[in-house]
């Protein structure tokens, strides 16, 4: 009988954990960077059923729990890439692998998660460098769809989903005057035929777009009114239905705006439509600091490793913007905006590190790719720091993850140890051993 009991204990322990809830374990003896307080030397993190129970200096290991010794190692919250195309694109040059951009200018009903490929090689490659979560963005003119927040692990997209509809993605219209090159290079793509070549025409285009955008929002408001009032003849409309959480302030709008004028237009639009806004990319945000400050608008900055927009901009313009925003008290996260190629999501920490070289405090850089990203995306209660109640999204390293030569030792998503292997590692090993 006793045998049965002893055998039953681990079974009970396992049974208590559902398949979804991840492991239970104790990380012991490393430096814990909770990002909610000072780092804990020689500390431990206790995880039960995929959730963090606590982090501290002396945590007793509950009976039967797996203990993972991490002497000399560092523990950080899993990194969050606040803006990517991950899962929506496999190979830039192969159209069939791209699901980023749908036809149409008003598509609030489209959801990025639908198109995410859980088998994308980008997922194992990215998480191998400590990134556990990514926001993946549909793109397009005006309203391109819903941004989805995903864990970089899961058999299916349902398992990966953290937040199916984390924000509506709006590309604020801009005034674009097309300049036809005097001597077009043979074979170079010609500018789109309808592209306006005068400021007047471009402004007209822009005004039309802004008007249509406002009208769309207004029609969504009327739809909601009619729906709530159960008006006679009311018929559900998928597009307008998708706008309701935005109108009710329950879902933010991620607004991509590049130039100062666009940022100002975005702010004006958000003021007018009374919506919760997150500024996206905004490399010229430093020109609009006051307005951003006043309204407490969070910003997801584009990659730091980027050329200045204007010829006369200081060479380090993109490197110093994060520090400038931080000094002004503006909350920001950093996104790689990667699909593929050079702006690979796995290099997220190095985007943050470059800002440190040019004035951003180290701690703030870490926050920009963990805690701040979580908070901006509305999941600050679930991830971004190592605190009780949050998911055990953890990365164990042999050093500072912002430094390139640091190796990732282990990665946990919702407490489950994630395989750090990927096709690239496999190819390396295979050809290393080629006779």
């Amino acid at each position, binding site marked *: 009988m006793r045998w049965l009991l002893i055998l039953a204990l681990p079974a009970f322990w396992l049974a208590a954990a559902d398949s979804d809830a991840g492991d239970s374990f104790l990380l012991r003896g490393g430096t814990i960077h909770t990002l909610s307080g000072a780092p804990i030397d020689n500390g431990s993190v206790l995880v039960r059923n995929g959730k963090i129970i606590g982090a501290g200096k002396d945590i007793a290991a509950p009976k039967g729990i797996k203990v993972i010794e991490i002497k000399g190692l560092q523990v950080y919250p899993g990194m969050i890439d606040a803006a990517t195309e991950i899962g929506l694109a496999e190979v830039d040059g192969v159209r069939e692998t791209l699901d980023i951009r749908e036809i149409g200018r008003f598509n609030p009903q489209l959801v990025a998660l639908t198109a995410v490929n859980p088998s994308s090689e980008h997922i194992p490659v990215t998480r191998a460098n400590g990134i556990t979560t990514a926001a993946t963005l549909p793109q397009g003119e005006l309203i391109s769809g819903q941004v989805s927040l995903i864990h970089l692990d899961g058999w299916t997209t349902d398992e990966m989903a953290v937040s199916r509809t984390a924000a509506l993605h709006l590309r604020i219209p801009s005034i674009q005057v097309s300049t036809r090159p005097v001597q077009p290079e043979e*074979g170079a793509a010609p500018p789109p035929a309808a592209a306006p070549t005068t400021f007047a025409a471009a402004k007209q285009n822009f005004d039309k777009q802004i008007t249509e955008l406002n009208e769309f929002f207004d029609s969504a408001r009327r739809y909601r009114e009619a729906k709530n009032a159960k008006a006679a003849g009311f018929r559900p409309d998928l597009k307008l239905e998708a706008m309701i959480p935005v109108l009710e302030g329950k879902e933010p709008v991620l607004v991509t705006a590049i130039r100062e004028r666009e940022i100002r237009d975005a*702010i004006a639009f958000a003021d007018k439509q009374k919506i919760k806004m997150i500024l996206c990319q905004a490399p010229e945000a430093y020109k609009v600091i006051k307005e951003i400050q006043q309204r407490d608008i969070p910003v997801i900055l584009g990659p730091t*490793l980027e050329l200045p927009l204007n010829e006369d901009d*200081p*060479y380090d313009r993109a490197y110093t913007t994060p520090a400038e925003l931080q000094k002004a008290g503006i909350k920001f996260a950093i996104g790689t905006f990667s699909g593929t190629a050079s702006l690979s999501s796995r290099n997220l920490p190095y985007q943050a590190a470059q800002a*440190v*070289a040019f004035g951003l405090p180290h701690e703030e850089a870490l926050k920009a790719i963990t805690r701040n990203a979580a908070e901006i995306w509305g999941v600050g209660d679930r991830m971004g720091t190592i605190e009780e109640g949050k998911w055990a999204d953890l990365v164990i390293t042999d050093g500072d993850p912002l430094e390139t030569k640091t190796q990732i030792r282990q990665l946990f998503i919702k407490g489950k140890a994630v395989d750090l292997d990927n096709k690239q590692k496999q190819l390396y090993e295979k*050809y*290393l051993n080629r006779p």
Partner: protein
Amino acid sequence: MKTLVLLTLVCTAAVFAADPPVLIQNATILTITNGTVKGSILLENDKIAAIGERVAAPAGAAVIDGSGKYVMPGIIDCHSHIMVDGGINEASVSVASMAGIPDVLNPEAIAIYRALAGGVTTVNVLHGSADAIGGRTVVMKTRWGKSAEEMKFAGALPGLKFALGENPKRRGNPAGGVPPGVVELRYPATRMGVEDVIRQAFSEAKAYRANWEEWNAKAARGELAIPPARDWKLEALVEVLEGKRLVHVHCYRQDEILMMLRVAEEAGFKVRTLQHALEGYKVAGEIARSGAGISTFADWWAYKMEAQDAIPYNAALLTRKGVLVSLNSDDPELMRHLDKEAAKAMKYGGLSEAEALSLITINPARQLMIDGRVGSLEVGKDADVLLYDGHPLSNFSKVLKVWIDGHQYFDRDQDIADRPKQEAERKELLRKLGGEPRRPAIEGGTERQTP
């Protein structure tokens, strides 16, 4: 700052006197070829004059306190397209060796200054990859403020760009079918055709060379004959055959790498560098035996089918198998932080710090056959020197000063100090030319900006 420097240099006398000597003291000096020296380095008369624990300052020397700072040789980018006017590809034909970068250099491209601020002092400026055999290439130094001629790396061998794989066959096999108005597609459309184009071209070059040899013989005999006409396209190929022009081959897949090595051997020339060669690691042994060097990306992948098997371990694996490897940028943004890229070869594949730094200094110097002049801090080499506020391979460090030939071309402090002046000058000019652009008002918002 940059334009002010430009104007200042133009307004002062054309001949510029030799720079005073520069002594950097108490720094950590990463020589690349002779380990690390904690001490001083002296730049004098365009060259590195001394390196050591203690070096005396000659009269008139500018002395720089290098405490806590690092010194390393200027970075060499083996693959770039900056400073070129009017397009980097002569893409109408598959063999464009009559055309070349030296004819279209733009020394005022801001990309040069930005690269300089990132520590790049020597650049291998290449023709693009639209042609199986592209145009002529040239090695430059980022001597910001000088003319194109003055920026050329004197004595460096010229090069010729080749391209294999997807890019040179794009016009033979366009995505949307035959474009309107195009009568004939440009050969080749397959990798088979790419090989054919190269073989045919060298066959033609050899016939051309034979014609000249025949005429030379006739002329020597006093026989009457009309000499062949100079064909600039074939002249470049003959220079390749004679080893006077280095061959840089853009390639991706292992099969095309091996194809190129075979074609070169058959034709009788050597491939100097295989550029990108993202699958190079698969045939590292073959590459090592051929003597060709590899100039590759640290970790780019997934942008084309032929880049699908790219791995960030490429540089490390090839290095372990005895290949001379450099890291390049092929991009005006990436070239600003090649030092940070080099650190990736430590992370992926375990290269040491010294090996990683070599990827962007002595290795590309050897590949371009300029290692007698640059690529390491050695007495007698060109004074192309970088001063950092931290270890170059750390993501938290940055370039403070750059010297080329002992002349300071970049100073971060000066750059920052000059910004208000430049801004004032711009405002003044806008006023003179009539009207500063109005600050945009916030539409319908609560604030209105006054112009």
